[in-house]
């Protein structure tokens, strides 16, 4: 929790949602920005060391104790094939809830919360050979920046079910 203010989706301080606009938490990985649907975000916490797991893919950093629950932490940078993150306490883990399962996503930091009006996102162009393109559901332009909106379901759907290859 060190250094990063706790932020929850239910926080009243969040900007009020515009009608028919979906809100996204914009996270930074290197120079890129990605949007995570805010309704999926359970909480945002500072990075703490994980306990590594044997026999898992390299982007699975390990598990952490989230108030008594064992939650896996995934290195998004690594998942997108861009090398491993060397985390510091200034890094951030976004806890995302899918169904009843919680997943931690390690990112460099939180940059913004953006409202994306319906239909404002462009379909992603086909990036050939880019791992991350399969997880992107749209692109939005926000004050000269481009944010890639992530399809969290697709990103995480394989993690729980599949056995180690």
């Amino acid at each position: 929790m060190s250094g990063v203010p706790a932020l929850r989706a239910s926080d009243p301080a969040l900007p009020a949602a515009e009608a028919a606009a979906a809100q996204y938490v914009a996270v930074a990985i290197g120079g890129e920005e990605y949007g995570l649907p805010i309704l999926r975000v359970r909480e945002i916490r500072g990075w703490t060391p994980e306990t590594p797991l044997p026999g898992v893919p390299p982007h699975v950093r390990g598990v952490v104790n989230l108030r008594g629950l064992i939650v896996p932490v995934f290195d998004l940078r690594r998942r997108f094939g861009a090398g491993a993150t060397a985390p510091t306490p200034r890094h951030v883990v976004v806890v995302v809830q899918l169904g009843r399962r919680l997943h931690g996503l390690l990112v460099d930091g939180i940059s913004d919360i953006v409202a994306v009006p319906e239909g404002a996102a462009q379909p992603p162009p086909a990036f050939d050979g880019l791992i991350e393109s399969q997880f992107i559901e749209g692109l939005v332009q926000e004050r000269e920046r481009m944010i890639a909106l992530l399809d969290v379901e697709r990103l995480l759907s394989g993690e729980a079910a599949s056995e180690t290859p």
Partner: protein
Amino acid sequence: MDELERFKQTFFEECAELMAVAEAGLLRLAPGEAEAGELDAIFRAVHSIKGGGGAFGFAELVAFAHEFEAVLDRLRSGRLPPSRALADALLHALDILARLLAAAQHGGAGPPEAAIVAADLRTLLEGAAATAPASAPAAAPVAPAAATPAAQAAEGPGTYRIVFQPHIELLQRGNEPLYMLRALKTLGFAHVTCHADALPPLPELEAEHLHLAWTVELTTAAGLDEIRDIFEFVVDDCRLEIVRLDAPDAGSEFAETEFAETAFAEPPAAPPAVAAKPQPPARPAPAAEDGARASAGAAAGGQTIRVDLDRIDRLVNLVGEMVITQAMVAEQGAALPPDAAPQLRAGLEELARHTRALQESVMAIRAQAVRSVFSRMPRLVREVAAETGKEVQLVMSGESTEVDKTVVETLVDPLTHMIRNSIDHGLEPPDEREALGKPRVGTVHLSAQHRSGRILIELADDGRGIDRPRVLRKARERGLVPEGAALSDEEVDNLIFLPGFSTADTVSAISGRGVGMDVVRRNVQGLGGRIVVASTPGEGTRFVLSLPLTLAVMDGMVVRVGDQRFVLPITHVVESLRPRPGDLRGLVNQCDMVMARGEYVRLVYLDQLLGVRDAAGDPGRGLVVLVETDEGDRLALAVDEVLGQSQVVIKSLEANFRRIDGVSAATILGDGRVALILDIAGIHEMGRGGARGTGRRPAGAAEARP
């Protein structure tokens, strides 16, 4: 007989629960807040008590519950308008029911008011059926002094005409009209006429259908209620008309009303319960009620209480958190200089002891005898034996062995499957057994016992044993075993747990259900358990299931490997030792055997197996922990350091992630960090091939061994 007692016990426990439901509902009924669902719940509760009571032959209880139920039925169908007086009457009836239950349980006599209250209820019913609803409650409280002339006239001998026209399915409900007619005869002089006009021609006659009706003219000194009592159990299944012939204005309806009044006019019929009735706001007869509740309480309090499982789960979780906190505090305390704060240290020790005692007590609440699962098996055995044409006797022992409720529940499926398998595949047909010089009747032995903090469940049959050549041939055919691989007998036996394995040449209806032994094993492993099979050709097969007693906490040894800590289940730890260089033996560049207690044991490097960095990697400098699987296989784990022993709370990895080979679960240590609990048998299997990650076949779903 013993069995019956247990069922009775369960029935009374359930009754206590049902009574609570009914009472809560009725209390809400009084202020007029009850909803239809509520009434249904009350009705069902009383109905269940009646049903169960009937099964055990508690006639008085059943008769009363029947009246009660009838009123409730009218009420919920809207034919009887709810009112304060009605609610009070029903509450009173509930108290009587509680006392009848207590009487049934402890063998005493029922409360004398039961008959009166029953009559009271009937009055409510008839009031609803005949007259304006509002008058129904008013009709109930009739003091003896106010008995009408008609009621007085009803006393003394009289002649009744009883028309008894059973519904066609009366016999199928287990009733016998003959008994009722005989009972009528005991009351006085009866002239019975049988009406057989509805009888169909013989070819169409169904033996279990009743087409007869009777008219009885009975001259008796008995009252209408005594006559009615005879038909108590069949009133729903027949048309019954009882008319007093010598009374003025004789008529069915009138007779009923008269009957109710008669009941109140009976000599002992002036207990305070009745007298108290007309005061609507007061709950009727508080004294009687308290008595009822006290006796019901005594009945329940002595042995068991039923508690919502959620509450216990919450308690278990809280204790789990407390164990973690206690470990954390203890860790801080241990860091103090030895002579600092002696009182704090003493307090911490005390805390550790109490925490453990508390945790054990809480776990004991959840403990349940395996009997609840075992008791389902005789029936299964009978069914499967009948389906397969085999003769089987089931011998069970250790049914009272206790284990956590969650473990008990998850035992049902594996056991069911294993027993089906044992009978279907294991046991020979009777003739074949006879030819082999075995008794015709095969024996399946199911037992449970505690051993070193686990429960062992054993299922043994005296059948033909596993046909190893055939198993091996099948496994080779399916590519589960490489050609030319030499397997030990034990390894061959354990092939049946592989996915996609089937020994039955023809898939039978019994065990060919798409769930195989691989699924059984996976379920068992999911519980942190193991299953092994041992077989002797011609003599039988024995499965041993080993499960943890609880899925919530365990005692663990915390070890350090490199920069990581792991927890070894203490029940598997034999000892830890620091090997001398001469104790280590190796083949290639690495020592893979260690001499421990006079035998060479395979050495497993946890850092390599689990991919840990920065480990010493040298058992000569580190330590070796000798562990033993449930099957008795020993192996030596090379670790850097033993950090101590502590009680750990078992946390699921699967809840948010998935199963990991060699890891049974995770836990949270005193510093809040997660540590993995190692699965010794899994490590044993993984380490078999020498390198990490081998020796384990994918545990994906597949067609199964039937």
